[in-house]
């Protein structure tokens, strides 16, 4: 198994794991943080696929801005003391 293949398998395992955990974990804040981690790992995946433009856009827009929007929503939810599912 070459180093590149091992690296790819590691990234894919981390992608699937963080995505699944983001949806399942009980605390919504942790879910959003895991989602941001997922977005940054996606940027790595795009770099591996030879797509630096997408990597830039995913890191800035997909992880950064979407993460900011979601974190603000979670904070708003907590401020209203909404029981989270």
């Amino acid at each position: 198994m070459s180093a590149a293949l091992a690296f790819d398998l590691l990234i894919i395992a981390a992608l699937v794991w963080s995505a699944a955990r983001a949806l399942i974990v009980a605390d919504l804040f942790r879910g959003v943080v895991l989602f941001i981690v997922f977005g940054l790992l996606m940027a790595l995946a795009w770099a591996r696929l030879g797509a630096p433009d997408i990597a830039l856009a995913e890191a800035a827009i997909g992880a950064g801005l979407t993460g900011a929007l979601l974190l603000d929503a979670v904070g708003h939810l907590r401020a209203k003391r909404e029981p989270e599912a």
Partner: protein
Amino acid sequence: MSVGLLYALAGAALFAIGLAGLLALPHLLRKILAFNILGSGAFLILVGLGQRDGSVDPVPQAMVLTGIVVAIAATALALALARQLLELTGRMQLPEDRADAETDDA
């Protein structure tokens, strides 16, 4: 197995995870998270399958770039709608999901 095909398979897995989350989870914020994961899986499939013979293909990459921007636009609108629903009903769940849960507990 080329890099493209490997990531396309990962995209299929993410697509399945996102779809299951979107349909099964009642909380609206989690549905939005699942929708984003669904989209990322679809983007990986689009680029991965296009590059499954090892070449770098700019056309699906440009499409995915467009898709990422549209995804954040949809996420922002969905979050605004969810907050409006929270304002009006006090819960972050769709009324029909809440009704199902209540009849389940009864």
